[in-house]
């Protein structure tokens, strides 16, 4: 074998020690642990104004529109056309509106057309059908 085994051993030890230096610095006591940033809780989508119009094929006894489980509009009385400006959270993913309608007895199969102008001014339309009572969820993009 060429060279001194002792010299080779010392050389190997020095190389390992140099490689271990950064590791020691990282793990020595006194280094504060990295804290996770935590989940960035999304801010609730800002409330925005949307215009909603309801047109009934037969005048309802009453109706209610819910957003995120809360009633945002309800009405009753004579008439087949209703319109209102709502202030609701409207994220880019769209909204679900829950619609409940009660028609008078004998009205038969009836419909309600929902026309929504979203915060960007785009028009959307959905129609729901029911006999007597209606409860359904519509999604607007």
């Amino acid at each position, binding site marked *: 074998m060429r060279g001194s085994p002792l010299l080779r051993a010392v050389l190997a030890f020095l190389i390992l020690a140099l490689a271990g230096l950064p590791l020691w610095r990282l793990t020595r006591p006194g280094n504060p642990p990295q804290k*996770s*940033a*935590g*989940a*960035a*809780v*999304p801010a*609730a*989508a800002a409330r925005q104004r949307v215009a909603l119009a309801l047109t009934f094929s037969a005048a309802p006894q009453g109706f209610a529109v*819910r957003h*995120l*489980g809360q009633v945002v509009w309800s009405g009753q009385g004579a008439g087949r056309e209703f319109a209102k400006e709502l202030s609701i*959270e409207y*994220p*880019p*993913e*769209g*909204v*679900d*509106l*829950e619609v409940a309608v009660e028609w008078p007895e004998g009205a038969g199969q009836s419909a309600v057309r929902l026309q929504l102008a979203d915060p960007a001014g785009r028009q959307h339309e959905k129609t729901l059908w029911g006999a007597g009572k209606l*409860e*359904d*969820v519509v*999604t607007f993009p």
Partner: protein
Amino acid sequence: MKTLPLNLAFWAALTLALGAQETIRVSSFSTVLTEVVQAVGGRAVEVTAHIKPGVDPHEFEPRPADLKAVGAAELVVVSALHLEGYVGKLQQAAGGKAVFLQVGGQFALTPGPQAGAPAGEGGEDPHWWHSIANMEAATRLVRDALSGIRPERREEFAANAGQYLEKLAQLEKWVRKKLAELPRNKRKLVTSHDAFQYFAREYGFTVYPVEGISSADQPSSQRVAALIRAVREQGVKAVFTENIENPKVLAEITRESGAVVGGVLYADGLGEGEAATYEGMMRHNVSTIVEALK
């Protein structure tokens, strides 16, 4: 001697009548399909449920007793879409005598990778039952299969299927109403394995699965790191474990991201207690998701 033709006619009629009344032996390899077959078949079926609630269907292997039951069955129902890697064994055991209904194979699939998954991952999701529309289609398939085996009981199967379909329609209404409580920008689902693609497509969710389609898949460290990043960036409040899965990796994700464990979901079929029925399972899953994320 004169009575011989009458006797023969009598015994032939009796045999036919008994055959019509004889129950259809069904072998089911899906907890969800066991319920559907029992609902549609009623007293006309005798179902052997080879996979019990709480058993992981990805890891189930039929034993000799299972294959023996299949050999005696007239109808074998499986989820399909490669969930059961042993269909060939079942077909061999049936020896061509049974009708094989591979339910999932009839549906349009949700292809492709899901959000949070590294490129190249994805594929057919076999968990079709997380869409109620698919359950309705499965009910009709089972009805038609049973009617094909016992045509004289077609009306009975149609009536039973009608009742079950009505239950599913009411469940669908409840699901949509409950989900309407959750803003659409919060519909982000972090789950143990990739079992909710149909649910996501139906109800406007984005899925971030830890593991792949099969619960036997193991996530790479890069995959876990990518998920932690996604949970932070997307502001996902909660992640969900499953009734069959080991929650260690999800625990790591919650520790590093700040999200909490929102609850247990039933992904691979029916469970026990409230999740022992399809309706119970769906109500549990949807309620757990909505309450944890809103």
